[in-house]
């Protein structure tokens, strides 16, 4: 199997493709594969040349933290829960999320996610629920990993200047539902930075590793 990885040494450096050969089991995840390439022995590319180890973010390694978000065969995915035997073909292409600045190889800077939530005061403050709150949906929404996959896949998300992506809609909904004093503000914040621009491609729902039904957040806030 050929593994093609889009690499970049430094934040300002040029990106370049490097390929590796792999003929081990396909019963492993892309995360385990990256570990294997890095640490099985010296890391050798498909020209037989020793190269530098591949940089990537990881933490829980079981789909609970969102660290290892990257684009695998053109699909924004978590490396730890994407398995080789579920992928088609004999070539695997991995590149960093392109909507965020690259720090090193597959490591990107996702601080814009927090910055946007901060600048728009998306916080509950005090639990003061609206009546008829949808508890189940709030539970799902609060599981958001802030992984950025929904932003990567979204045709409307550029760099987070004014449209902030699906995770933003979810967090707005959480605040809207959990503190009725902020409900009105959240609706307009949502409209300014999500609702008015979203073209409802809903591709975010296809890639969300937590399977958060964003459409429910949108429906509640569009009401």
């Amino acid at each position: 199997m050929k593994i093609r990885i889009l690499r970049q040494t430094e934040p300002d450096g040029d990106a370049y493709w490097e390929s590796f050969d792999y003929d081990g089991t396909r019963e492993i995840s892309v995360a385990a594969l990256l570990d294997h390439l890095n640490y099985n022995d010296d890391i050798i590319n498909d020209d037989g040349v020793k190269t530098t180890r591949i940089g990537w973010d990881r933490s829980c390694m079981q789909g609970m933290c969102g660290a290892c978000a990257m684009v695998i065969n053109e699909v924004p995915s978590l490396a730890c829960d994407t398995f080789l035997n579920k992928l088609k073909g004999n070539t695997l292409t991995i590149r960093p999320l392109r909507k965020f600045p690259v720090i090193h190889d597959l490591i990107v800077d996702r601080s814009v996610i927090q910055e946007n939530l901060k600048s728009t005061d998306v916080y509950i403050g005090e639990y003061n629920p609206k009546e008829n709150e949808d508890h189940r949906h709030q539970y799902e929404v609060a599981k958001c990993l802030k992984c950025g996959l929904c932003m990567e896949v979204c045709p409307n998300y550029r760099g987070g200047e004014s449209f902030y992506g699906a995770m933003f809609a979810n967090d707005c909904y959480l605040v809207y539902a959990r503190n009725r004093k902020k409900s009105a503000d959240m609706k307009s914040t949502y409209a300014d930075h999500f609702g008015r621009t979203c073209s409802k491609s809903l591709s975010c729902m296809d890639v969300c590793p937590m399977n958060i039904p964003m459409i429910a957040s949108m429906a509640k806030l569009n009401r």
Partner: protein
Amino acid sequence: MKNVLIIGSGISGLACAVKCAGLGLYATLISPVSSERSQSVMAAGGINAVTEECEEGDSVSCHIEDTLRGGARIGGKNAVTGLCEHAGDIIRYLEGIGTVFSVDSNGRPMIRAFGGQSFKRTHYCGSSTGKQIVSALIMEARRYEADGLIERKLRLDFHSALIKDWECFGALLYDEKKRLLVPFYADALVMATGGQNALFGKTTGTCLCDGYAAGKLFMQGADLKNLEFIQFHPTTLETAQKKMLISEAVRGEGGRLFYEDGGKRIYFMEDKYGPKGNLQTRDLVSREINNIGRDVYLDISFLDKKQIDVKLPEVRDLCRKYGGIDISQTPIPVAPAVHFFMGGIAVHLNHETNIKDLYAVGECASMYHGANRLGGNSLLAAIYSGWVAADDIFGRTENKTHPDFDRAIRNEEDKLTGLMSSKSSFSVIHIRDMLSDTMRKDMNMIRTESTLKEGIDDVDYLLSVAGQIWYDSSESTYTNYSLTGLLTLARAALTSALSRTESRGAHFRNDHPDMDDDYAFSTLISYDDGAYNTCLDKERVYEN
């Protein structure tokens, strides 16, 4: 206004920052990656507290007694009393900031049973308690960010504390983006760096908790405590990427442990301990599995598929995804793995270390859990300890001026530049691998004098070469400079385990299988220019 620097943004670091800000202190929270990636998000089961929701007959004193008993009587009574007395407030606080607890039809938080407790008192948020708490605390941190009282900074790693004459003035950090060391001066430094997972390689937790900070502070003069007490979880699924925790709920639903002998299933726990054998404590089950010395399986396939879907959906999904196993058809191969560290940085009741203005909170500190932790008590301790440290810092009057650290910092910069400009094909990762092999072999759940001594010899050898291997430019700078701290911590843990010639809680010595009253105290270890000195805290200087 006082400046507080907090290293680590899991639940304990977040709780401390938010409390500091609430008191009007200015808190800077640093970590390499955001709170969403901390180990705290993995905590599934719940958080203990006696509240109005609890069963009749339960009381705070009962929670205290369960905790002290679970910790095999070396936890401090005052410390544990403080923890349990504040537990109800903590649940109310978490509710008040909007944590999505599992609630009953009246909107009141629900409780479940957890091992080692006389009553049901574990409050939970579905199967993602830690994650839900982190989400709520992040929102609170954001609220104070808007007020300018909290700043959260990413891509920064702890390098060392800025200490002079047993007083701390902040920390030296490694900036991953600028690729250089930066000093950060503060009136107080709070460590919230989590457990020591990396000593053992793959564990149930995250590789970001490596124990380096504890090891480095130890080398800088901080005492460590109870390092020999490491909790193993009996049922984990080994995969190519990690050891995944298979929840106790499987055994709670009737799951049976067995091994195969000549095609026959031997239900060894039931054979030895009767019908409830599979539900014995984590330590005991772990040791029994270890003693079997062959592949052990956990079977729940006899349960109706619908029941599995309703009662064990997370376990079903995890086994299917990561192990390719349909648990309604096939038993799960399981093995014990490192899960939680009761030991860590020694702290007094106010969570300050033996170095003035240096604090430690959460799993990186050793407090409350004694020789063994009750499930659900560590999330509680993470929040409570963050609060205690913040209150104590608030109570201090002075705004500090720091001495001149320029020379010391230049020295560290030179060392790092030297490390980075040298060339070697010998990877630090290989030394880390050798370390975790040693720890898994010699600091396993069953220990003897000879295995511990072998472990010490091995780690001493690794320490002797660590000074000679050079920078591996392929690895992150942090991975390189953290090696010596990790090895030193491992050496301290092995030394602590060797010094405790009895068995207690999670520490089991095959050559000293009984509990010995003379050892009913915490182990302290200090570092003096390469010497590792242990003693029992008989005066209960730290935890009383």
